[in-house]
């Protein structure tokens, strides 16, 4: 799968299928600080991302 990340902007490849929660663990990200978006849809932590999918892992934290 293709994973798009921000801050800095980059794309990485991961082997799928994989649960969203496992992607967070693999990337060592705290779920509370991100959303996972496939197409225009949000994904919950129990959902499976297929190997052919592209997802965005979007940070939600701003400087305030």
């Amino acid at each position, binding site marked *: 799968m293709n994973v798009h990340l*921000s*801050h800095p902007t980059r794309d990485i490849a991961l082997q799928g299928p994989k649960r969203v929660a496992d992607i967070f663990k693999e990337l060592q990200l*705290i*779920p*509370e*600080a*991100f*959303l996972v*978006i496939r197409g*225009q*849809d*949000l*994904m*919950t*932590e*129990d*959902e499976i991302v297929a190997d052919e999918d592209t997802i965005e892992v*979007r*940070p*939600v*934290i*701003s*400087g*305030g």
Partner: protein
Amino acid sequence: MRCRKCSNRAVLGLPRHNTAYCGPCLTEFVRTQVQKAIKVQRMFSPEDRILVAVSGGKDSLTLWEILLKLGYRVDALYVGLGIPGYSERSHEKVERFAHDVAEACGSQLIIQTVEEDAGAGTGVKELANLIKRPTCSACGTIKRYQFNRVAYQNNYDVMATGHNLDDEAARLLGNVLNWQEEYLQKQSPTLPASVEGFSKKVKPLYRMTEREIAAYAVVNRIDYLVEECPNAKGAKMLVYKDVLNRLEAESPGTKHRFYWGFLEKQKKSANTSNHSMTDIDQSTLLPCETCSQPTTAGICSFCRMMARAKTATR
């Protein structure tokens, strides 16, 4: 994961509430929380004119959208800070939202730029360098000043900002770690127009986390600027937010309990104190000798900053 309310496919789990929502139920939940915040904290009424401070980010555009959807009389103010690239992109997001969503509701966008204030085509970073202050500090002074000035001069009843639960919990942590008691006293979702020259200030998103607001924005197709301000890199607030999110992961509801607990203590303290915030402001604030906005010093921090910048450019 299924929506706890309607059993459709959920789009967001909310561990702090031990629940999950689909898109429409999340939208309803967020708008209800904002309504509750407005009511509980006595922020404003449907007759009031509200000015929302917008940056192009998720919080401020979401706040603008929610207040419009709830039928409030709301306009918006954007302050351009002259940050190369970033300011152009954030301005574009705000203009697009104004055009695509707000104008149809009769809502107006007001634009102010820091270059106009500095009078020399200067951005906030250059201004901060000139006066040897951290960029975020100079930026905060400019924004607070402009938001208050525009709201007051244009007779808005209240000024609203998109500060959320994460912002308030992180700010509280910073204030407690440094025992800044004078700041603790002023950390409230509603600040009264305590003296002539001050607008009432409110934070209607204080009950929502950043993640819930971002999810609302995605579900409702609010096109916001995802990129972070380049000047925020290394900011203390981001460190405090990261620490709180690590605690939240271990114990959902930590941020909520931390800030709610503080508000409860603040309320009890206000009930037993002989001096309200308005009393204190009225006894300590005087009009700035240059611009007339309230200040504890003879000249307010904004006018001092601008005077120093002008001296430095001579």
